[in-house]
């Protein structure tokens, strides 16, 4: 199978902002989504050195614009992409999608390129950092945003969001998503063939969307989704990773426990076709672990993460040393997220707990995570773009002797070897290759 050649959508990057612009007045001229009054205030504010206040305003405007545009795809759909199945069309996209999530969605939907997404994430870190500072800290240490940081952030926001009159989103993909619940597809359908050869991210997302429709709908939508699932699953099964296979098995257990006979019977037929019943959890004990891990990740990705990570980490730690297999992927991701930290460092209180938990991992569990989960764990892979998390990653690889594991994925193998050598350039090279394999090669 040739991967990454065909995709159902592809980002289109048009550089309309000249790269050499450096003055606020030149840059803001391109900010079509801002009023002339707002542009004027931004220029005046920056000239007066009010960098924090102005950049905060620019960032808020940019995020609101981005979220509004993403919202046109449907909040339910965004919820499916973010693994937040509870989101519905009644929810306000500005309230329910965090800034970090909006940037992630923009990247995954091809609204911005990976490079620009990285710049937006850096802008977010900068804004969040200055927002979190205590007044006393600013006064006593004289911490302040520099002009170059402010200009760079302004430029990133204008280039990617505020300068675009209307953000192009993946309409072709959205149409396909609608077809999954409104049409019965057949094997000769071009969209099905494209799906099979699409990047892993897209296949994973299709499975998530179908499972979400199956769990929540009745009538015609349910029937279309179940028929399409029975068509698509056998085509994708061999290439799916364990994380997605457990997700399917878990959905079977859920609809079975809810007494939903139609959904259970069709999922059962699909699982029988692919001999997938080994991925149905024997019990739902894993649910408690999954919830605990989700709480850690929520604390990690929210503001004040360094203070808030400890409590949920302790909860997970007290749940016992044996993490059930269906929950292992998300638990490992949460523990690693805390252990690696972010651009600014790690939580002093949660970090030692995460470290202890990593020492409980057996070699088999490491092997499972690195072979089956890491290639799709973009949360952890993205952390390697930053120096401090990358340094912590290399330490983990060294201390846990991860080079002694057998790797099926050549990029993971190379990533681990480069981490042992502490060659940051090489680690980033293989991180990038893994991201490309997941999302498909993009500009």
């Amino acid at each position: 199978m040739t991967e990454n050649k065909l995709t159902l959508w592809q980002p289109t990057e048009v550089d309309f902002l000249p790269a050499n612009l450096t003055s606020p007045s030149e840059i803001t001229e391109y900010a079509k989504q801002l009023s002339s009054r707002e542009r004027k205030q931004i220029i005046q504010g920056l000239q007066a050195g009010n960098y924090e206040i102005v950049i905060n305003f620019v960032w808020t405007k940019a995020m609101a614009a981005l979220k509004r545009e993403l919202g046109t795809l449907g909040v339910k759909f965004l919820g499916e992409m973010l693994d937040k199945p509870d989101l519905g069309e009644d929810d306000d996209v500005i309230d329910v999608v965090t800034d970090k999530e909006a940037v992630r969605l923009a990247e995954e939907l091809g609204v911005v390129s990976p490079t620009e997404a990285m710049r937006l994430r850096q802008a977010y870190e900068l804004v969040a950092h200055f927002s979190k500072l205590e007044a006393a800290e600013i006064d006593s240490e004289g911490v302040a945003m520099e002009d170059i940081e402010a200009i760079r952030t302004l430029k990133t926001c204008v280039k990617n969001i505020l300068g675009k009159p209307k953000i192009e989103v993946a309409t072709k993909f959205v149409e396909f998503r609608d077809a999954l619940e409104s049409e019965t597809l057949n094997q000769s359908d071009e969209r099905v063939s494209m799906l099979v050869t699409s990047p892993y991210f897209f296949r994973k997302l299709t499975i998530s969307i179908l499972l979400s429709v199956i769990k929540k709908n009745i009538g015609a939508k349910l029937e279309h989704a179940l028929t399409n699932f029975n068509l698509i699953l056998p085509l994708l099964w061999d290439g799916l990773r364990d994380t997605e296979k457990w997700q399917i098995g878990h959905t079977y257990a859920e609809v079975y426990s809810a007494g939903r006979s139609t959904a259970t019977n069709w999922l059962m037929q699909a699982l029988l076709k692919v001999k997938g019943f080994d991925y149905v959890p024997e019990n739902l004990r894993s649910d408690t672990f999954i919830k605990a891990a989700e709480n850690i990740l929520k604390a990690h990705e929210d503001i004040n993460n360094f203070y808030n990570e400890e409590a949920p980490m302790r909860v997970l730690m007290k749940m016992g040393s044996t993490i059930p297999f269906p929950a292992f992927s998300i638990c490992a991701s949460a523990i690693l997220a805390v252990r690696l930290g972010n651009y600014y460092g790690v939580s002093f209180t949660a970090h030692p707990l995460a470290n202890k938990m990593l020492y409980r991992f057996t070699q088999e569990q490491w092997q499972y995570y690195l072979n089956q989960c890491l290639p799709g764990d973009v949360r952890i892979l993205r952390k390697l773009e930053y120096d401090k998390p990358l340094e912590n990653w290399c330490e983990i690889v060294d201390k846990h002797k991860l080079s002694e594991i057998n790797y099926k994925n050549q990029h993971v193998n190379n990533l681990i070897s480069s981490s042992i050598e502490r060659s940051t350039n090489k680690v980033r090279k293989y991180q990038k290759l893994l991201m490309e394999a997941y999302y498909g090669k993009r500009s």
Partner: protein
Amino acid sequence: MPENITFRAHLIGSINDFSDACSMGLIVRPTILVELIVTLSRFKEEGAKLIPEVYLCNDINQLLKLLPNHGLIHIGEAQATEDSIKEILKKCAPLAIGGWCIFIEGNGDLFKYGLFRDSLNPLALPIDEILLSTHSEEVKVVRVYQTAGDCVEIRNYRGNIHNIFLSHKKESSPSPTKFLSELVDAICEKVNESQKETIKTFLSKSLREALTTSHGTLVAVSNTSTTPKFLSDGVHLREPIDFAEEIYQVSQNKLQPVVLTSQSLLLKGMLNCDGVVVFSRNAKLLSYNCFIASSMEKVKPSFGGARMRAFETLCKKLGRGIYAVFIQSQDGWTDFRRNKHD
């Protein structure tokens, strides 16, 4: 020389095709099936009537993969002969209660046997609905189960079903369980579509379990949200049991599933009382122990006792306060009528 006439030879011949269609080897050969059918049709232990569900399979672990949160107890092993069936049932049948079923696993010269159960979640799909709807060679299984007095059903994973009548019933008689699903449809007719499947699953399971041990019962489905006046002689619940609401609360994690289990037990108790149990069409249990006003009981059926007379009287009220009526006689046979003009 006197000639012995038994139905054994005839029965073995009749289920030969069923046995072949299962392609499960020795475990479902006709002689084993006949032994099970005859023993289960009137099974008693220490004077108590027992109605266990028996599953024959080649690999119990393969089967259990389909049932998340299951439980399994191995009891023993026996030679793979029909003589072992009585021994297996004697050891396992008294334990096959409260959701436990008997399994007999055969894949060679030995039978391994024991008990298994599903998740015991009151909302989960029944075991037979999962195991007997696969139509897959990967999960070969046969269920043998007494569905009414002198009637045993054998059913396999391919969907083949035989009702074995060990009485003078005609071949054209409907299956004793035929009307249960129609009763549940009537009770759930006006519940929210998004919840209908779950409520139906729960009520089917609860009613089936209750009716298995019942000595006969009458259920009426009211046309409105109240009990009809002519059934006023009874116990009318001040707060009707609203199964739809409780199931919704459980699905939202606002109520523990055990609440539904206890409501199931109440239903079982009510069905064991004399008189009529009354439901509404939106899955509310309104009244039990209801009796028809004596002035109305003018119907005299050609056969049957008080329950059958009451059933016929209720049938006359279809469309006039009553939407549907269900009867189960003492020996487990059922009948159902519904107002077709509604």
